[in-house]
Each structure stands twice: as C-alpha cells, then as structure tokens.
C-alpha cells in the first residue's frame, strides 16, 4: 500500500436498471485493490448520486449502466456535480454503452468509459493513474 490516502470511489446505478451483478463484482475488485468503495444504492436519481458524492468527498464517481438511459442521466449528473463544485471529481461509466455514445459522453465531461469485457486490472490501473494525476502525486 502506498503512503497516500486510499482512493475513495462512489459506485452508483441510476434509472430503472436492475442489473446489479457487474457493479457488485466491481466493488469487490476495487476493495481488493485497496480502495474505499461507497455504495450509493440502486435505482438512484442523479440528484442523490451528486449529493452522496459531495458528502462522501470521493475521488471518483463510477456509474454502472446496463439497460440504456445513460445519455439521459449522465448529462444531468455532470451538471449537478458542476453546480456543487465537484469539477475535480473523476467520473467513469461502465457497462453496455454503444460505441457511438462514447464521444458525446466525453464531450459532457465523462472522463472514461469502460465497455463490456474491460478487465478489472485495466479499471484499477486507470483509476490509480487518473487520481494520482488529479492529486498531483507520483504513482507508486
């Protein structure tokens, strides 16, 4: 474990998406990588996710989406986060995301999209690198 503070990540699912296995597996993998994983619960609104991210002072918000709807609630979430001054919080999205949405998601401020088949190692490595950059730390 490095000397720096553990990475805090809020995992969220919004809308009526009931596919919870992916986010559960991810939570375990991130915990095993030494992260502090905070569950915001399933079927949440962007308002609740943004408020939770603020109160928990997380480095990362990770959204899992497997049944569409991300083009509707992601812009709303990012807008709310900006309103609350959470511009520095990393936002990642994972799940079933059509190729053609990825550019639009990047434009609204989603830092990274992981599609089906992404490996846990890649996700962990990306988060470590991106958070270290935001915190201005050298990667251990």
């Amino acid at each position, binding site marked *: 474990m490095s000397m720096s503070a553990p990475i805090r990540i809020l995992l969220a699912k919004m809308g009526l998406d009931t596919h919870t296995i992916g986010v559960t597996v991810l939570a375990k993998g991130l*915990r095993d990588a030494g992260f502090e994983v905070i569950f*915001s619960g399933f079927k949440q609104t962007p308002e609740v996710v943004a408020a939770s991210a603020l*109160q928990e002072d997380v480095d990362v918000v990770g959204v899992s989406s497997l049944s569409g709807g991300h083009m509707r609630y992601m812009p709303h979430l990012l807008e709310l986060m900006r309103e609350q001054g959470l511009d520095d919080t990393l936002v990642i999205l994972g799940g079933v995301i059509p190729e053609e949405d990825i550019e639009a998601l990047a434009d609204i401020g989603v830092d990274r999209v992981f599609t089906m088949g992404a490996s846990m190692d890649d996700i962990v490595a990306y988060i470590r690198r991106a958070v270290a950059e935001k915190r201005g730390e050298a990667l251990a």
Partner: protein
Amino acid sequence: MNGPELFAALLEQKPVAIAKAISTAERGGPDSEALFNQLFGVPFHSQVIGITGPPGAGKSTLVDRLLEQARAAGRRVGVLAVDPSSPLTGGSILGDRVRMQRHALDPGVFIRSLSNRGHLGGLSEVTYQGIRVLEAARFDLVLVESIGIGQNEIEITRMVDTTLLVTIPGMGDYVQAMKAGVMEFGDVLVINKCDLPGVGQVEKLLQEIAHDRAAPGEWTPPVVKITASNGDGIASLVEALDAHARVAADHAVRRRYERRLLDEMLQRAILNRYFQPLVQSEDYQALARQVLERQRPLQDLWSLL
C-alpha cells in the same frame, strides 16, 4: 479550501466544508492537527448517540428510522457510518448509506461513511474528530453507527453521550459473549426484528444484564423492542434515548474521553520530542551496544536521563 477558510465555512454549515473537514481528519498529519485545535474550542451541544451491534442486526435501518423521527421533530442530523477495512489491502466496502438514501437530499441531514484506515491514533481519533466536525456544523443529533466486533467497539462507546446496543432474536450467543464487553456500556438495549421468533429468550438475557447493572442513583438501561423495517417501537425508543440524554446532559462520557485524549496527545508529543532524539543519539547507541554485550550493567541505561 483549508485552514481558517475551511473552519469558517464549517461553522456556516456548508456541506462541502463538512465533507472536506472530515477528509482532513481522515488524512491525519499537520492539517488534521490544526483543524482539531480549532474544533476543540467548539462547545458541546449535540446529542451524540453511538449505535452498535453485530452485523445483520439492522443498525443502518434503525439509523434511517431515527433520522426520520428527528427530522419530523425539526432536528438537524449528522451521521457517521463506520465500517472496517481489510487488514490485508486496506480496502473496504462501505454500504451503510444505502439504507438511509431517502434522506440524502434533505438539507438537514449529512451522511458520511468512514473506514478504519489503521493510521496513527487509529479509528478512534478520526471518529471523534468526525463527531466534532458535525458538532461544529451545529447538528442537533449526531448518530455514529459502528459494527459490534472487536476492540474498536468499546472505543466508540467511550466517545458518545449515549450507547445504543442492537441485537436480534436468535443472537443469544452474541449477547452472552459480549456480556463482559460492549454490553457493559450499552445505555439503551434494543431488540430489533421483533417480528422474528425467539424474542423472549434474548429479552430475558438483556433484562438480566440491565438488572445486574442496576444501582441506586444510576441509570438502568431499558430494554426496548422494535422492528425497524416497519417502524414498530421506534417512538418508545426515541423516548428512551431522550430520557438518557437528560441524565447525560453533562456529556460526562465525552469529557472523560477528551481527558484521556489530552493524556495521549501529550504522550505522543513527549515521544516525538524527547524519546525519538534520545534513541537516535550516538550516546544511546553506544551505551545500548555495551549493555547488550554485557560490558556495562543494565542500570547504566538510566544515566541517560
């Protein structure tokens, strides 16, 4: 935002300041010490309740109910949900807030998950600093939820005004095992999930514990039966908590904890200022070598003082 600016924003009850102040406490180091210096000047005014009990006893659901009751009474509530971290990786899954999310958008509620990061001073000081942050932000009620396992548990009971202990039917073994432990500190003993069979057995055990602790002029812990999932018994629980708050209005438990904290802070400062330079000094290194080689007697060690 840090230092005086952070503290000023905290006194103005700004959610972002509350969040950043707790993070500062979690990180430890000079910033945390500077913040604690400022927090120390804040007078006691919050009712601080620690909620503990074994995993699966329904602590988070109970906290959700207490939130509901307090908000209906117009009281602002801060929640610290403490979960253990893996001793192997340091990682943790903090899932308590899921059961309280219906309060997430309520401006009178602030919920924060804390993990046991195992740094200097341990979870205890970080949790206490978290309580003081919420007190500085003038929450009327502060709820600290923690898992009823291990030594940390006794620590939690020492830094709150009221300890609420939750068990459920069928947990007789847990109650027995904890009889000489966290049970001795429970101010209100709660049986949750009273819609399950086996209430009588655990109730009898808790009554025995309450009876053993009964003494003239002392608080006798009441045994309260609830079902947090449907709200049964919550009103009686709130009455019991308020009754204890009246006898604990002098915050004696927290004052005792702070006294111990001062001793510990002084001890750490002495170690840093006097012990560390001494053990690193050449005089000591040479003397220690000679003592270990039996060239000089052990009592020569005291010549260094």
